[in-house]
């Protein structure tokens, strides 16, 4: 019986994650005074793409085809480790937070290699930007998780968020606030949202993540889009677990509340996208260094507490 709940949580994430992008787009449409496309648009897109035949350029090799599959598999694995509503996941072990960082790195590596494999100048440019920003985003994320491990005295993600309660917030609020802010900035950058990137642009020269997916089509593109929605869920749920430490003991109400918080996080992303312009490309690292500083500061506060 113990496997049922984690498994149903896991399946729920698989099914619900494309909804987050739908929420973001609804919020953006609201701010722009438009009707916007349907909340379930990504599901329709995925369905359409899965029924298409992919097209491959003659210059590409198996590396190009492997990229999307590795990317989406890595995300699926990360979500098996990730806690849901502070509840343990079914694949949880000591030090698993390092495991997910490597999985995220693997997904990025596969995507970048696939982009470089096309030999296109645009994709090369996107790959180089992606790697450059990752250099700043990964330490911020890693250090943030390390600080959280210090706060809770646990080294598995499920353990960390399981141990995070209202009491932890009372004694370590500054640390947790800094970490939430840091994770939110990393979320924006890692999921290619404004102000780091503009997911709505059609201009190849300014793209980061989108440009690396330009040559993918059909099911491959569907894997990339689905992988991106899973990635948004990964970062969103870290923030969700962080700001929602209450464990009422009732699994159903915990889960319902958590889902609500996830949509609030998505709405917050939408508000940020609607209220500010995209940063100049050379200034994106500054924003990520800020996230790193927040994480570092959180760690220092925690050490001195």
């Amino acid at each position: 019986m113990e496997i049922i709940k984690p498994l149903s949580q896991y399946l729920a994430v698989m099914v619900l994650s494309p909804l987050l992008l739908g929420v973001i787009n609804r919020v953006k449409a609201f701010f722009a005074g438009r009707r916007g496309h349907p909340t379930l648009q990504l599901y329709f897109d995925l369905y359409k793409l899965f029924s298409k035949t992919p097209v491959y350029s003659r210059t590409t090799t198996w590396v190009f085809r492997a990229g999307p599959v590795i990317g989406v598999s890595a995300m699926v694995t990360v979500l098996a480790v990730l806690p849901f509503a502070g509840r343990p996941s079914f694949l949880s072990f000591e030090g698993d937070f390092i495991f997910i960082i490597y999985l995220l790195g693997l997904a990025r590596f596969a995507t970048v290699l696939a982009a470089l494999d096309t030999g296109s100048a645009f994709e090369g440019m996107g790959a180089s930007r992606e790697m450059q920003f990752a250099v700043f985003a990964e330490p911020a994320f890693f250090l943030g998780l390390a600080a959280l491990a210090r706060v809770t005295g646990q080294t598995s993600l499920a353990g960390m968020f399981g141990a995070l309660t209202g009491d932890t917030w009372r004694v370590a609020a500054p640390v947790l606030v800094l970490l939430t802010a840091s994770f939110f900035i990393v979320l924006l950058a890692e999921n290619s949202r404004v102000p780091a990137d503009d997911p709505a642009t059609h201009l190849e020269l300014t793209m980061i993540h989108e440009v690396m997916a330009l040559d993918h089509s059909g099911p491959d593109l569907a894997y990339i889009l689905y992988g991106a929605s899973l990635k948004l869920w990964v970062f969103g749920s870290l923030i969700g677990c962080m700001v929602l430490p209450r464990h009422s003991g009732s699994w159903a109400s915990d889960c319902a509340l958590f889902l609500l918080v996830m949509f609030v996080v998505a709405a917050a992303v939408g508000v940020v996208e609607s209220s500010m312009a995209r940063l100049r490309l050379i200034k994106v690292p500054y924003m990520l260094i800020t996230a790193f500083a927040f994480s570092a500061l959180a760690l220092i506060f925690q050490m001195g507490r």
Partner: protein
Amino acid sequence: MKTGHLSSFDFGASDIDVGIFFETAASRLAAGGRALAYFAVPEGAAQRLVMAVGFDRDGRVEVYSTLVAGPFRALTPSFPQLHLFEREIYETCGLKPEGHPWLKPIRFNTPGSVPGVADYFTVHGSQVHEVAVGPVHAGVIEPGHFRFQCHGERVFHLEIMLGYQHRGVEKRLVGGPDERSIHYAETLAGDTTIGHAWAYCGAVESLCGVNVPPRAQIIRGVMCELERLANHTGDLGAMAGDVGYLPTASFCGRLRGDFLNMTALICGNRFGRNMLKPGGVNFDLDHALIKELLFRLDSSYRDVEDAVSLLWDTSSVADRLEGTGVVSKQAAEGLGLVGPAARASGVGLDTRRNYPYGPYERFTLGVSGSGDVYSRAYVRWLEIQKSAELIRGWLENLPAGPLEAECGALKPDSAAVSLVEGWRGQICHFVITGAEEKIRHYKVVDPSFHNWQGLAMAMRGGEISDFPLCNKSFNLSYCGRDL
């Protein structure tokens, strides 16, 4: 010889000796003149080089021509503003400007040439790379090929290769005016329908010696300013879109449509097609229509004000626009840039003020800037305010009178220069008539012809990711340049 714009003159009187031609041209350009047009007209087996020089400060136009049969002296090394004119002369008539640095084709309209197939700049070195964009683009825009010579994200130079849109409009206008001439003029650049149609009408009217009635002049002004409002509003929205700033982007997209609809309310076409005709206008404004237009103008203008002020009040937008894509005043003057792009660099050229015509007799608007994207955006906002004010004033005091004057036959063996400030900048139409009262040669110079080089300069030393934004701040026409 000295003349004015919109006044016909005896074309033969502009002829001078070859040596004197180049001496005069050089001295006039050095004395602050700007080349309005420079082209070759076939005359027997030889070619007649014609140059119109404009003196912006006193609104004077001078025209010189000379007969050449072989290679001639290139003035580009001293006056970069002529570089494209001389390349054009070489491409159309084969006469070589001796000393021109690089006679690359510009429209690929000679037999056997293929658009885009030419020599390009190349860069060498480690980590130096080239990025080629187009001629087919991701958005629904016209074709053009762009090559960036880059080091990482930094651009050394942007090479712009156009010519894919060449239709041969100038050639089709020869032998006119006829039923189709005005429509060719209207579609020279689709978003500048009124501007080019006005320039065409101005040229024909001065060659017929016709005075346009005041009511028609004012209605033309209303149409032209509506065109400016629509395009400037749309471009401010597009710039907001390029920096990922949603609210202004979506509101301005709708508001551009509102201004286009006002144009459609007057003449039935959103771009003002079939509104102008030589001698006057085709549609009148009655009392009810004026009331409706004033009402729509006020409400749309208020919305534009709200949407655009968001742009200036948001610091993340200002950070993105300021200091991006700077064109120095020196470069703008040297390359002969025109329109809002030139004014944003501090060049005091506005055809409406420097070469007053029609309803703009007492026009004043002084705008200036530091040459970056922010200035180009802000200049447009200032012009939006001025256009709305002009339209309001004109609609409230529309003079009574006829809508058109009868145009007779064109004066033979004459020529006329017609200048109009389109929304993108100065439009120049140079028309020469033959012995049989027909158009012998028609030369069009769209503002984009000058300004594409300005975009290349704006990208120098900039970041490649800023290109779409710089491009939008100029928003140049491909077909206007390719003709």
